[in-house]
């Protein structure tokens, strides 16, 4: 009922507009074209206005005006999308329609010029020369497969075929932030490069220095060869390299938020390379699309994992992964035919060597290991002592993933109706080879009079495989040239995997039990943690039912959709109880989310306005973690509302223009944990931009979080402590863009 009421409320203005347009002279309506209809989605073989799915399209101009140069800037601009800005570039946490989690597989597929980006650690990169961002919302499993259960974001860079002027941009502002970019086309090539530096926006009080500096360089090269009559070949190369600090997390204790203050080294380095080929061959009867890519990612994350001034424990996580993808699709060459089928096969193979050594330092040895162990041992028997200042727990993983999928989608393109049905069979095999070892020197006092070395190995292999069948059926009714209604039922899934971050907990407990066994002392309540077998988690699946409406009238366009998703095996990041050092993904029973998403655009000669709003009610249907029953509670981290309102006006100054834009961006309220005891209210941030636009160049000043509003952008627990990441402070940038 709540969904219906909200949908009805949101529909009222849409219905009024529709009635208004129904009485509007038809000739005028026909003369108007919705900007989005010229935008094609990625794999859909019909124009975007015939796609029965919620869709947000962000143009090059909007991207430039809103300084959207990272994926998280799309938060709230795309209704329902929430990508919190915290941590470092590898923490690409994405929430959409009540789906999402802070680690492991994302709920959104990302495509760069048609190449699927497989590794989530490569999602967050600096944009330059991006021509268009299209977001398909809702499960897109049939065409896009794994991890597209919340939606798909497709980024297209400028093509050498575009009428594009070479552009140079440089801007400078708060925290010595410099951002410079260059993009141009030459012959069959389009190239772009961007560099960004910042000293950082948060200070580490312990070290008295900024904790989140960033230096990053992104290069992109696109070559399009259309010289042959029936064949076009596109080569895409994307290279991103960055080095940054990060993890600006402050302790929350007894209702007080403490500043960021940690003692051990933290930071993140990454090199990501994506090389892809797209071939498009058009024969008389069929068209063939082939996409092949090789993806490489090497990164190194160092983290003071207790985030405090104490020397408790640190983590260094290095990843070296290589991925190969291939997709082959055939479809009918005649685009005007009534029946538009497409059939394809997709496969990828990924090998990821992950080393994640955790080092327990002296405070951690005392607090986490000895206090825990001696708490279990009667004092009159003795007490355990460890002489090491550091205990290394080495964890090496080799994780292989192989996925193969067959899919088919048929579109029946009738006069007033577009009917779509599709199915995909997705099979995935995963294997994790783990090789872990802890070494320490211990003494049992007063019985032992000297230290004894103990080595605790922990190794093995876990394998799993899953098959998912992902059907889709949809109908779109074209009520007029300007109004269309659609309904979709589809299924999506997020791949399962292995928890590697819980191995520090496993090894810690294994080491204590091994020490006790080595002593010949057996506790009635041994140190218990999950085992390697329990680190496997299953795919998450979601059925989506959706009703939507799109309309356009002249410079006005709007879209509204209402959905209900039923999520099984919801993947949720949990923190094991007590003084645990790890976190893990678990399948949290059953949840559901329902909501409404709307977008309104009105663009005239001088005035431009955009409104995105979403409401989402995402709750556990059944989730009991063994200690508490959270059924009925809100899913953590999912904003109940997202809002983005932008109004811009261009003043004419002779031959020049003064562009002014003001926007409000908001999300919330949030629950930070499953029990709902930690909450965040809805908050709005104001942004503004003023630009003096001349023929060949543009001077601009922009401000993010203009009113310097404070708030919290993320929450987590470590070693029993609670931490929050704060929203970034006011950032003012000024710069120049030159069109050559």
């Amino acid at each position: 009922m709540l969904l219906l009421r909200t949908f009805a409320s949101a529909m009222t203005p849409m219905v009024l507009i529709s009635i208004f347009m129904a009485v509007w002279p038809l000739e005028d309506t026909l003369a108007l074209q919705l900007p989005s209809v010229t935008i094609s989605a990625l794999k859909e073989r019909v124009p975007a206005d015939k796609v029965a799915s919620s869709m947000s399209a962000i143009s090059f101009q909007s991207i430039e005006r809103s300084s959207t140069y990272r994926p998280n800037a799309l938060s709230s601009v795309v209704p329902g999308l929430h990508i919190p800005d915290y941590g470092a570039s590898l923490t690409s946490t994405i929430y959409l329609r009540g789906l999402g989690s802070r680690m492991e597989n994302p709920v959104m597929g990302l495509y760069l010029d048609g190449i699927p980006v497989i590794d989530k650690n490569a999602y967050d990169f600096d944009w330059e020369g991006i021509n268009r961002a299209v977001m398909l919302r809702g499960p897109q499993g049939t065409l896009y497969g794994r991890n597209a259960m919340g939606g798909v974001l497709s980024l297209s860079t400028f093509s050498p075929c575009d009428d594009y002027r070479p552009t140079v941009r440089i801007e400078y502002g708060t925290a010595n932030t410099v951002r410079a970019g260059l993009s141009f086309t030459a012959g069959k090539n389009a190239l772009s490069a961007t560099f960004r530096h910042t000293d950082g926006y948060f200070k580490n009080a312990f070290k008295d220095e900024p904790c989140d500096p960033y230096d990053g360089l992104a290069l992109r090269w696109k070559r399009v060869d259309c010289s042959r009559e029936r064949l076009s070949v596109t080569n895409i190369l994307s290279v991103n390299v960055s080095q940054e600090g990060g993890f600006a997390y402050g302790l929350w204790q007894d209702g007080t938020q403490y500043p960021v203050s940690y003692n051990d080294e933290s930071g993140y380095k990454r090199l990501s390379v994506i090389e892809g080929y797209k071939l498009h061959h058009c024969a008389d009867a069929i068209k063939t699309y082939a996409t092949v890519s090789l993806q490489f990612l090497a990164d190194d994350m160092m983290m003071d994992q207790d985030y405090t001034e104490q020397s408790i424990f640190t983590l260094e996580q290095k990843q070296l992964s290589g991925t190969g993808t291939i997709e082959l699709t055939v479809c009918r060459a005649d685009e005007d035919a009534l029946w538009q089928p497409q059939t394809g096969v997709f496969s990828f193979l990924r090998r990821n060597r992950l080393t994640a050594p955790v080092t327990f330092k002296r405070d951690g040895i005392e607090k986490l290991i000895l206090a825990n162990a001696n708490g279990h041992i009667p004092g009159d028997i003795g007490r355990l002592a460890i002489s090491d200042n550091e205990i290394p727990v080495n964890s090496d993983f080799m994780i292989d993933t192989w996925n193969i999928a067959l899919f088919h989608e048929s579109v029946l393109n009738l006069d007033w109706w577009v009917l779509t049905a599709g199915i995909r069979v997705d099979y995935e095999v995963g294997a994790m080879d783990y090789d872990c070892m802890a070494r320490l020197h211990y003494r049992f006092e007063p019985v032992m009079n000297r230290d004894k070395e103990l080595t605790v190995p922990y190794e093995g292999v876990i394998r799993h495989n899953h098959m998912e069948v992902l059907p889709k059926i949809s109908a779109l009714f074209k009520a007029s040239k300007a109004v269309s209604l659609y309904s979709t039922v589809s299924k999506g899934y997020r791949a399962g995997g292995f928890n590697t971050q819980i191995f520090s907990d496993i090894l810690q407990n294994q080491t204590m039990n091994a020490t006790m066994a080595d002593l010949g002392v057996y506790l009635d309540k041994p140190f218990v943690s999950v085992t390697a077998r329990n680190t496997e988690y299953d795919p998450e699946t979601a059925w989506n039912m959706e009703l939507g409406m799109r309309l356009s009238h002249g410079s006005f366009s709007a879209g509204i959709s209402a959905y209900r998703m039923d999520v099984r095996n919801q993947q949720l990041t949990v923190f094991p109880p007590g003084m645990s050092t790890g976190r893990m993904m678990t399948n949290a029973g059953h949840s559901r989310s329902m909501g409404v998403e709307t977008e309104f655009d009105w663009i005239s000669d001088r005035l431009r306005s955009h409104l995105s709003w979403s409401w989402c009610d995402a709750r556990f249907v059944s989730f009991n973690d063994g200690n508490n029953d959270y059924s009925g509670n809100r899913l953590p981290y999912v904003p109940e509302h997202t809002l983005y309102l932008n109004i811009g006006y261009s003043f004419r100054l002779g031959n020049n223009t003064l562009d002014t834009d003001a926007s409000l961006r908001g999300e919330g309220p949030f629950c930070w944990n499953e029990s709902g005891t930690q909450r965040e209210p809805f908050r709005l941030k104001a942004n503004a931009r003023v630009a003096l636009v001349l023929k060949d160049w543009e001077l601009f000043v922009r401000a993010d979080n203009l009113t310097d509003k404070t708030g919290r952008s993320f929450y987590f627990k470590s070693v029993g402590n609670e931490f929050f990441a704060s929203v970034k402070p006011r950032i003012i940038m000024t710069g120049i863009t030159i069109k050559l």
Partner: protein
Amino acid sequence: MKKTVFIIAALAAVLVSCEKNDKADTPIQPKQGEYVGVVTVTYQGANYDNNDINVDFAPNEKGDSASVTIHQIRFVPQMPVTIDITIPGIALNSTDDKIALKCDSVIPQAMGGEVPRYKVTGLKGEIVDDELWFSLNFGSFPTSFRGARLKK
């Protein structure tokens, strides 16, 4: 012919007779083994049984001494841990039908070293066929074990 058969039969009888005599005169060679049984600890006048306790019997090469390791013993019910405890230097005396165990006093080993508080006194016991029993005092805890050899 009858004479020959008689001589063979007589020789066979003598040989069988000699074999029996030889066996009767040979002491049992102590063998390493694992026994499972019940350890009973007397605490404040009451007996406390530890069921299904594994005991390792490990003789030296000469067979005149052995160590006994009692696994996961709990001396009193309220003890929150169980421990492995090893009693070294137990004297063995093998005869043709049993092995006698004896130790007047020794400091046992547990938790990585010697544990004087559980000093062993008055240990005596026997291995007969596949059964082991012994009694002793662990400090102030009179303790006994009776169990059977674990057949693998």
